[in-house]
């Protein structure tokens, strides 16, 4: 099979990227308003993803704080319970589909992958722009759904509940998810092709940065699982609007089939969120610990292993639902096994610290924070993977605690680490380290205060997705709510830092961290086609402690 892919051309010849369908002269650097257009430059698109996602993070975060304020008391005295459910549903949806996934894959992936493999752009720049521009309308649909009551059936949207509450809002919600799903499919296709075919020839496969391995695994997973979600949601949309009855029990439909379709995507979705973050970790830790990553191959292959095994664990979300006993046991075992490659990564990062010269930069603090939180989230995850115990804690606050440790500790910390690490490259300016530390401390304390007590709440008997609860749980809930306020406050130093540094931060230079991956060989911010002359790779991405000079782009001219 041969695939006609735009390869990197030798410098000087046809190396111009395609903007708006014609090869043309482009400006020296993009102006601010280019960031609001259908720009096809991968770096512009990456920044578009990151900024949009962060705005949605703030919106989703406000919903979370509103929910926690409601839960400060046992009664539904602040929000109407239906509104609470709408917040709960859209908080989850926004955080997953419009914050973590777009920022980790879309934002970092787009900005970094071409730079890391030495390409001038993504394989299909226009497709890339289309993929991004599907996101804002999706967000608007979700926000618009609040005018119709807001979808209230949780981000899982299980029928029959999703068929009987707020049908218009639910339809808008489905359309939004289908849009982001399409975006994710298009983006993934682009990543796979870019990584497989556009790497500079001098880069060997074992010199591919681990972030690119992670994005490759993520993209394959997205390509395999997203269509299944789309199928499930489209059937639901038909049930809602066109009188079909795939999931209507009173007309011969089966509600459990929906759960299978949904989780076939949505369990892998947690790996979609976490794998790119693992990739970020593998880039940040070696640089700031001044050590080669420990076990490059193990870390690269474990991404692929997670991608494969991750497709066979979805029924662990359905242990108390309509699944036969044998299925519960099969999925217990496969779920437990997925913990192994994850553990391999954790141990690899810890071992990377050994003997290092650790710099406690803000990026490194968040990376270490992730490591510490993820251990907790991983251990509680293993307990829930086993059917007998999951029967007790399923759909309780124990689950809420677990997935926030994984998603907040494991994803948000990683995204922040990535932002502090690559901000100099993205903007050409350094971020303020003092504000960064304040941000870290507030986030770390806030996260643990908010989510640690939830383990106990769940074990003791508090179900999730409730606006009112048994008064016996008041005390622990108060602690969670205080933690949530701290988390809310924690974004303030970050936002100030980002805006202020972007405008007036210290000039960063090309390679402020003395890192060895290719993105640091170009100027900061990178020129429009990334390099004057493409770099030639002469050493691996993590050879710290070896006698190598950071690659300079000029070195590459041959």
């Amino acid at each position: 099979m041969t695939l006609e892919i735009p390869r990197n051309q030798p410098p000087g010849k046809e190396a111009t990227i395609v903007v708006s369908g014609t090869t043309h002269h482009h400006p020296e650097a993009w102006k601010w308003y280019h960031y609001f257009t259908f720009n096809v430059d991968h770096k512009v698109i990456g920044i578009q993803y990151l900024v949009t996602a962060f705005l949605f993070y703030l919106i989703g975060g406000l919903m979370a704080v509103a929910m926690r304020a409601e839960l400060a008391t046992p009664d539904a005295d602040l929000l109407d319970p239906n509104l609470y459910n709408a917040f709960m549903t859209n908080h989850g949806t926004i955080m997953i589909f419009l914050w973590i996934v777009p920022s980790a894959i879309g934002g970092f992936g787009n900005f970094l992958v071409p730079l890391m493999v030495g390409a001038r752009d993504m394989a299909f720049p226009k497709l890339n722009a289309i993929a991004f521009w599907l996101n804002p309308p999706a967000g608007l649909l979700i926000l618009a759904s609040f005018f119709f009551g807001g979808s209230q059936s949780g981000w899982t949207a299980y029928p029959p509940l999703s068929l009987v509450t707020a049908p218009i809002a639910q339809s808008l919600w489905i359309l939004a998810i289908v849009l982001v799903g399409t975006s994710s499919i298009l983006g993934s296709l682009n990543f796979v092709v870019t990584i497989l075919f556009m790497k500079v020839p001098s880069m060997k496969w074992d010199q591919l940065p681990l972030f690119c391995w992670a994005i490759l695994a993520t993209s394959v997973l997205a390509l395999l699982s997203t269509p299944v979600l789309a199928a499930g949601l489209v059937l639901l949309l038909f049930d809602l609007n066109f009188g079909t009855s795939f999931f209507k029990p009173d007309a011969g439909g089966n509600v459990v089939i929906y759960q299978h379709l949904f989780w076939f995507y949505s369990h892998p979705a947690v790996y979609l969120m976490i794998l790119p973050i693992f990739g970020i970790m593998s880039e940040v830790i070696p640089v700031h610990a001044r050590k080669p990553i420990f076990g490059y191959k193990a870390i690269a292959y474990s991404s692929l292993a997670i991608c494969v095994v991750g497709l066979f664990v979805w029924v662990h979300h359905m242990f108390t639902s309509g699944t036969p006993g044998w299925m519960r046991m099969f999925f217990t075992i496969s779920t437990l096994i997925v913990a192994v490659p994850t553990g391999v990564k954790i141990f690899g990062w810890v071992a990377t610290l050994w003997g290092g010269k650790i710099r406690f930069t803000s990026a490194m603090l968040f990376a270490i924070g992730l490591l510490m939180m993820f251990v907790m989230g991983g251990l509680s995850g293993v307990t829930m993977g086993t059917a007998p115990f999951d029967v007790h804690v399923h759909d309780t606050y124990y689950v809420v605690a677990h997935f926030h440790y994984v998603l907040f500790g494991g994803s948000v910390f990683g995204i922040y680490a990535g932002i502090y690490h690559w901000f100099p490259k993205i903007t050409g300016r350094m971020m303020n380290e003092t504000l960064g530390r304040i941000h870290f401390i507030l986030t770390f304390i806030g996260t643990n205060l908010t989510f640690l007590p939830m383990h106990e709440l769940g074990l003791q008997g508090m179900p999730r997705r409730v606006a009112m609860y048994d008064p016996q749980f008041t005390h622990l809930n108060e602690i969670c709510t205080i933690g949530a306020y701290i988390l809310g406050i924690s974004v303030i130093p970050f936002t100030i830092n980002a805006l202020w540094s972007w405008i007036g931060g210290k000039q960063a230079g090309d390679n402020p961290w003395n890192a060895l991956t290719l993105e640091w060989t170009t100027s900061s911010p990178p020129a429009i086609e990334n390099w004057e002359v493409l770099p030639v790779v002469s050493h691996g991405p993590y050879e710290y402690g070896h006698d190598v000079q950071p690659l300079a782009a000029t070195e590459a001219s041959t």
Partner: protein
Amino acid sequence: MQQIPVSLLTLVAGVLITLFSLWVGQHHSLLPMQASEQAPLVDGFFNVMMTIATALFVVVEGTILIFLVMFRRRKGDETDGPPIEGNLPLEVFWTAIPTIIVLGLGIYSVDVYSRMGGLESGGHNHTPVHVAHQMPGSAIAATLSDGSEVTPANNPDIGIGAGAKEQGKTADLVVDVTGMQFAWIFNYPDSGVTAGELHVPVGADVQLNLASTDVIHSFWVPQFRLKQDAIPGIPTKLRFVATQVGTYPVVCTELCGGYHGSMRSQVVVHTPEEYESWLTENRIAQQQQELQQAVAVNPAELSVSEFLAPYVRNMGIVNGQLSMVNSK
């Protein structure tokens, strides 16, 4: 420091961590009291996991913290660390250990689960349940008069079945449980009693046949450590033996609408004598009620709140709440 061999330190640390983890595993008191035959099984399993998790947590987090202190950059040191890229024996070690642990847990969980009754193959009754009501704009409009048709088949396949001791026997007491927004209705087919709370005798082998008239609900008694969804269209079951007299909460754990959080009831575990007298009392009371109703009204013509009214008292649902539910 330098005189003490590292292996000795490691050994001491290992012993201390092991002791600490074993202690935590037994004394965490995170779980509520045990009130069913299954609860000690689940708790035993959880305690084992808690022990292992504590040990792993302490070791991994401890290692991270120690490394952070030991290998922090000293002022003025701009050099890199030693270029260690991997160590095969070490990597094999930390792949093998978790693999062994999770396979062990996997096997243990199969054992616990089958003793709990989770693997019991169930009966052969595959008759699909007929959910008779139309799904209208609002699920609450489901006509309760069709309740009889919703009653699940006698022995549903899915759920938690007979535990090790009860295998092969029929249950002492069968209760049909119907979930609806936002209440549980308990129906005793043998005695015709209907109630808003579950009453069971202690020590009896009870089988709940779960059904739902509208959306998915999930029946959970934290003190029993048991949970099973009530799924419209698919009958499920939950079999247990209560071991402690007392009153425990029944919680709905599947999001079922705005008032999901208020879908709470109780299970009252009686001594056998108390249970008998509760049953007799209710049988007589309800027979009289039925007599009156049979003359006066056809339940099908009742509105939901009218139909529910007799149960509301038992369920402890405040009147305001019910009207809120209905006004939707």
